[in-house]
């Protein structure tokens, strides 16, 4: 299978007056054509930074992409001149943002906001672009006659449908969805996700789904990557990760989901807090919270080990000689 997207050793920093925030520390990922990858991690792990890096939407300053490559169909997006990047944005790669309340321009009719992206990438007249915008509204389950209304006249779920209509208007090859349902009610979440799934099947779009909700990943993704403190700690097929997780952090994530069959009075969270990204621990970033940690974990950054079938783990327990010899 051909690679749609390959991120290689991406390092991103935010340089602020309060210190340097190391948001991404050598992230590598890949996504095959037509597949979907779920990127799971807690708040502050670098999920949105990764998404914005792919779109080249990191504000500089304070953001700074230090190293790495983002290959989209073999082309390094980070090396593209901005004019070429504009042709990619919205046309080949689209993004759905986290909060539909703030993602739409409040003083522009929604139809026009959809028509804009069509007009800039396709050679059509304004009237044709507006017509297509109406069709897009119907496709996401809204009435075309509402194209002239403004965002404040729509509910949150409807706004997210509009955002999705914008993202899919030019039939992109890759859709990046940054926590598309976090800001929505649970019932609306299901509707929006179902709709995205259906549209993706129709259009054959690849999906990078960013979320902190393992349930959402289970329903929508072929592969899963777990991100912690700006590093991908585990990556594999959905089934592999859900049934045979290896990294202690992934173990903690699944351990924190309450079981339906066992009685539990309290939730079982991972102990400790995620480290401050402006003051990361040496060695493995997870070692202060890890119950398997040994001396080596605090000294050396673990390598990435393949545990079979493309399932990779970044942890000393799966191949480090020092770890084994410590006993």
């Amino acid at each position, binding site marked *: 299978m051909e690679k749609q997207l390959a991120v290689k050793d991406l390092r991103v920093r935010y340089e602020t007056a309060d210190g340097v925030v190391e948001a991404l520390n050598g992230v590598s990922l890949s996504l095959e054509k037509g597949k979907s990858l779920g990127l799971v991690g807690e708040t502050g792990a670098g999920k949105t930074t990764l998404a914005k890096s792919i779109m080249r939407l990191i504000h500089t300053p304070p953001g700074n992409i230090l190293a790495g490559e983002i290959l989209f169909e073999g082309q390094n997006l980070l090396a593209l001149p901005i004019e070429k990047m504009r042709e990619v*944005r919205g*046309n080949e790669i689209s993004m759905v943002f986290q909060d539909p309340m703030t993602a739409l321009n409040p003083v522009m009719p929604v139809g026009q906001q959809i028509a*804009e992206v069509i007009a800039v990438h396709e050679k059509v007249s304004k009237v044709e672009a507006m017509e297509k915008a109406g069709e897009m509204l119907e496709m996401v389950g809204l009435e075309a006659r509402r194209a002239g209304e403004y965002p404040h006249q729509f509910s949150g779920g409807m706004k997210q449908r509009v955002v999705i209509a914008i993202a899919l208007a030019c039939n992109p090859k890759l859709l990046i969805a940054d926590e598309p349902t976090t800001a929505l009610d649970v019932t609306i979440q299901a509707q929006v996700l179902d709709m995205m799934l259906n549209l993706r099947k129709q259009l054959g779009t690849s999906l990078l789904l960013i979320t902190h909700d393992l349930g959402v990943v289970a329903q929508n993704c072929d592969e899963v990557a777990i991100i912690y403190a700006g590093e991908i700690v585990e990556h594999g097929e959905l089934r592999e990760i859900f049934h045979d997780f290896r990294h202690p952090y992934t173990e903690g994530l699944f351990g924190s989901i309450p079981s339906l069959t066992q009685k539990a009075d309290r939730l079982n969270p991972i102990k400790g807090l995620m480290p401050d990204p402006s003051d990361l621990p040496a060695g493995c970033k997870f070692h202060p919270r890890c119950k398997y940690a040994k001396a080596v974990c605090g000294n050396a950054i673990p390598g990435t080990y393949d545990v079979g079938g493309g399932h990779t783990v970044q942890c000393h327990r799966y191949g480090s000689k020092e770890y084994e010899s410590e006993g």
Partner: protein
Amino acid sequence: MYKYVLKRLLMMIPVLLGVTFLVYFILALSPGDPVRMILGEQASEESVQMLREELGLNDPIPVRYVRYLGGLLQGDLGTSYKNQLPVAPQVLERFPNTLILAMSGMLVALLVGTPLGILSAKKQYTLLDNATTVLGLVGVAMPTFWLGLLLVLLFSLHLGWFPSSGMGEGIGPLLKSLVLPAATLGTSCTASVMRMTRSSMLEVLRQDYIDTARAKGLKEGYITLHHMLKNALVPIVTVAGLQFGMLLGGSALTETIFSWPGLGRFMVDSIKSKDMPMVLGSAVFLAVVYSVVNLLVDILYAYIDPRIKSQYKK
């Protein structure tokens, strides 16, 4: 919307009552006798008394005030003490000159202030931003009369490019005579508009929907105009509206320096000669204009921001 406009028009009544009340009492209580001003110091006590009676100045102030209001309701702004002519036509005759000057000043402010503010916001903390900030502060802080004199010194006396005073007849001379007063009047406005544009743009610059716009692949210039500026516009229009009102009423200094035959200078002259009906008439007229300008600004909001429009409907 119509209901809102009607409501606002009704609200102008107490505002105008307040303005007339304040101006009337301040003028009536201030020292100096208008009759002496009219007849001169040598006039006989008898003729002074006769004129006082004729002008109704012997009645108590509240009575005179109510009488004035009665006239006002019938559209009668009174008669000038000085030249015995009705006030209204004289005010109306000078107002267009003030309007031309104020509009030119505003045009300067918008044409220079808005683009500089946008640039300054987009290049925050760069040399350009700092330079425009300093220039802006100088512009606000510089006294109008001083700036006016400097401009006259350089462009009229030294270079001889523009006339130093008066209002030209015909389009060409008129425009030429407008340049210096408009620049003088526009400078502090330019600075205010620029500062407001900058801060309002900075607020919009990092909004999520700007990222959405960039993610669509739109060009930066288009985003700046259609996504940023349109959202930043409400505070800018507010400031511009307030400034425009000030320009209409407060251009007395500039008009005096450049001998511009406008309402401001006219009012100052009337105050000096204690021509009470004239001052009152001008003040009432300006208050009406000021209120109307503000109403227009508020109506303009509805066209800029549809969220405000939906509020007006309530």
